[in-house]
């Protein structure tokens, strides 16, 4: 009974019910995308884009348009800027990525400190799912639906794009299109993710679930399911834990995800460290 109460008590509050639903949804959506992110090798790119969207989000707030639009412009724009600088200078890619996203993020931080608002824009940085507004809920649901439908419809080609872009081109697929599809979804899900964990940590939602699933599965479809399950679990449980300890929801979610990753890293039945060290012993 104690255990059931632990789960049901917070649900007497409307804000908790909303928070649980939204974090579950965001957890699922970011995790679905994370499988593609880690297989394509876009973890650094995910970090960059999720930070670069900050000024876009603040400016959208000022202009009273949906955050998603501002995020999209700055998300895609930052990658175009990265490409441009890389092609026209001798600076290496990782440096260019770091330069561009920190510059844009800093600009966003300045905007946050200067824009007078009724809403604490600091919530954009750290998340505020416990105080989420209904308009934000609508936006998050729309983004989630767009992302999940796109991934469902284009799944096979996106997998091919991540695995063998050369083959994709050779059979006539437009790899540039898929590049921008993934990039756009990345920008949009950053907006969804900022509700629960904030801009600073949203990259974790786009990497860790995929990484956990990668250690636990050798089939892409299973990987997606495992990622989404771990994303949903850590989001919901993280929200509950933050309620009870009165601590940062975003922080709790990401810490929980990281702990799940550590468990997978050590105990995974095929790719975990325990299994590997046993194999090495028996090989020698």
């Amino acid at each position: 009974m104690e255990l059931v109460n632990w789960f049901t008590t917070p649900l007497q509050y409307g804000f908790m019910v909303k928070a649980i639903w939204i974090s579950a949804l965001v957890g699922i959506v970011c995790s679905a995308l994370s499988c593609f992110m880690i297989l394509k090798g876009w973890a650094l790119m995910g970090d960059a884009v999720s930070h670069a969207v900050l000024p876009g989000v603040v400016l959208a707030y000022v202009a009273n348009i949906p955050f998603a639009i501002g995020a999209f412009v700055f998300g895609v724009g930052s990658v175009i800027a990265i490409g441009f600088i890389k092609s026209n200078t001798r600076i290496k890619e990782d440096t260019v990525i770091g330069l561009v996203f920190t510059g844009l993020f800093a600009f966003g931080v300045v905007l946050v400190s200067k824009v007078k608002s009724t809403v604490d824009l600091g919530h954009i940085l750290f998340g505020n799912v416990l105080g989420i507004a209904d308009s934000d809920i609508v936006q998050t649901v729309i983004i989630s639906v767009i992302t999940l439908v796109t991934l469902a419809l284009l799944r096979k080609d996106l997998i091919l794009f991540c695995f063998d872009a050369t083959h994709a081109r050779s059979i006539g697929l437009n790899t540039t299109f898929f590049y921008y599809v993934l990039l756009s979804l990345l920008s949009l899900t950053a907006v969804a993710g900022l509700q629960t964990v904030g801009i600073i940590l949203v990259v974790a939602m786009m990497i860790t679930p995929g990484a956990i699933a990668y250690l636990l599965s050798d089939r892409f479809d299973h990987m997606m399911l495992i990622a989404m399950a771990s994303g949903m679990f850590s989001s919901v449980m993280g929200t509950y834990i933050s309620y009870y300890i009165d601590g940062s929801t975003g922080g709790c979610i990401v810490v929980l995800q990281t702990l799940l990753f550590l468990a997978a890293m050590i105990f995974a039945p095929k790719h975990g460290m325990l299994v590997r060290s046993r194999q090495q012993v028996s090989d020698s």
Partner: protein
Amino acid sequence: MNTFSIDIENVTVAYHGQVALHKASLQLKAGTICGLVGMNGAGKSTLFKAVMGFVKPVSGRVLINGLPIRLVQRNNLVAYVPQAEEVDWNFPVSVHDVVMMGRYGYMNFLRIPRSLDKQAVRDSLERVEMWEMRDRQIGELSGGQKKRTFFARALAQQANVLLLDEPFAGVDVKTEKMMINLLMELRDAGYTILISTHDLDSITTFCDQVVLINRTILAYGETSEVFTEENLSRTFGGSVIDLSRSKSQLQQG
């Protein structure tokens, strides 16, 4: 039937102002296994890219089966078998998944396989003796099995121009024999097969034609006529180590 399957006419390709291929010309008819020989950086991969339609020549043109290059991809005319180093073997796909990717060009955009696609995949896998292994994740395979999987993908594509990049590097003898036999069957069925390789012995063994490349196409044609010591010197700039062996094989043949 006068159409060449591969017709490269005076093609020049440049990347950022650097010329990779200069006025290259090559005509191959259907039904040939042709070796592509040259040093690294001499333009072999550029040539492949031109045939696949990945690079636009600065001048000249490329026709595949008489069709301009922009129609090549949509019509599944050319299949490419990559080098092992280029593949992410940890990717969570099975042998069957990889071969099915060869069919995407024929499938609807949701990529739902029809029985025709499933049959093509099955036939290809059986031809390379990999049907039993179809559910294995690709990282679990041996070197030869990995090669055969990607070969099956090219077969499933049902393209009759095949480009192979170092197909025999790191494969076991059984796989090598199987692939050579399969290539000869395909040649007899009218396929045009271009093999980029550093293995000069294999050229004399089963390539009926050879193309020598060094920033331009130095020579091409019947192996017995083109594969000479003088031509190889021009191809490798004098750095071929064991010309004497190749030469003695030519004298025997």
